[in-house]
């Protein structure tokens, strides 16, 4: 049962990722990416990371994708990537090289699982993750707020300058 659910969600994730890179229309790609992020949120749930699943839906599928769709709507009035690609041959070379990279990654990270198993599955609840974030990771957590502030100021600077 768990295996069947995993394979269904995995197929959904891979299919939507392929849709993202193969569809010509950027807005279709954005919608495919939302499906992909939702599938990954489901995988987080299966791994017991409830907090991350919720954060994934809220932050990624919500906030970030709204920003993407907004930018696509503002920037592209209609079709995109029209016209012949002058470097088509060089770009298509990416497919066999990508297949090679995939084999390498699978071989390295998934092929050899001989490390020790941990003491049971950790609880990914809000309480557990929050306790960790506010104890061991307190300093990085505070730095995150500085990073977000810097990003906000930078975006304001970039957006306000009129040509």
């Amino acid at each position, binding site marked *: 049962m*768990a295996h069947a659910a995993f394979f269904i969600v995995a197929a959904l994730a891979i299919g939507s990722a392929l849709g993202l890179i193969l569809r010509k229309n950027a807005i279709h790609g*954005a919608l495919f990416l939302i499906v992909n992020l939702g599938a990954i949120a489901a*995988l987080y749930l299966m791994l017991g*990371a409830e907090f991350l699943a919720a954060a994934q839906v809220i932050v990624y599928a919500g906030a970030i994708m709204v920003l993407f769709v907004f930018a696509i709507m503002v920037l592209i009035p209609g079709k995109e990537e029209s016209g012949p690609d002058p470097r088509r041959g060089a770009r298509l070379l990416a*497919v066999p090289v*990508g297949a090679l990279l995939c084999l390498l990654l699978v071989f390295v990270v998934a092929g050899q*699982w001989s490390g020790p198993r941990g003491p049971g*599955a*950790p609880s990914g609840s809000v309480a557990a993750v929050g306790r960790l974030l506010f104890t061991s*990771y307190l300093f990085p957590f505070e730095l995150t707020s500085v990073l977000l502030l810097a990003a906000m100021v930078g975006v304001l600077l970039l957006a306000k300058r009129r040509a």
Partner: protein
Amino acid sequence: MVPESYYVTLSAVLFTIGVVGVVIRRNPLVIFMSIELMLNAANLALVAFGQRLGNLDGQAVVFFVMAVAAAEVAVGLAIIVAIFRVRRRLSVDDLSLMRW
């Protein structure tokens, strides 16, 4: 219980699709979305490894990756919009000023 190696394999496949997307597409917005795909694949691997090792550190790191990704998207999209204002076209092949 699905073994964690399945999750890591799926993460490797998604990461590769993101890499190929960055290389074969010409629209900077789609390239940007492919980068998000790669970030998510790495996050999935982190959570799977954390599950395997039985600690929560992987999930804490994923939280920080999400925060950094949010900042990165805001700045990156602002840069793309600024470039579009100047050039009125949206293709990474035009942006070869700093090419060696």
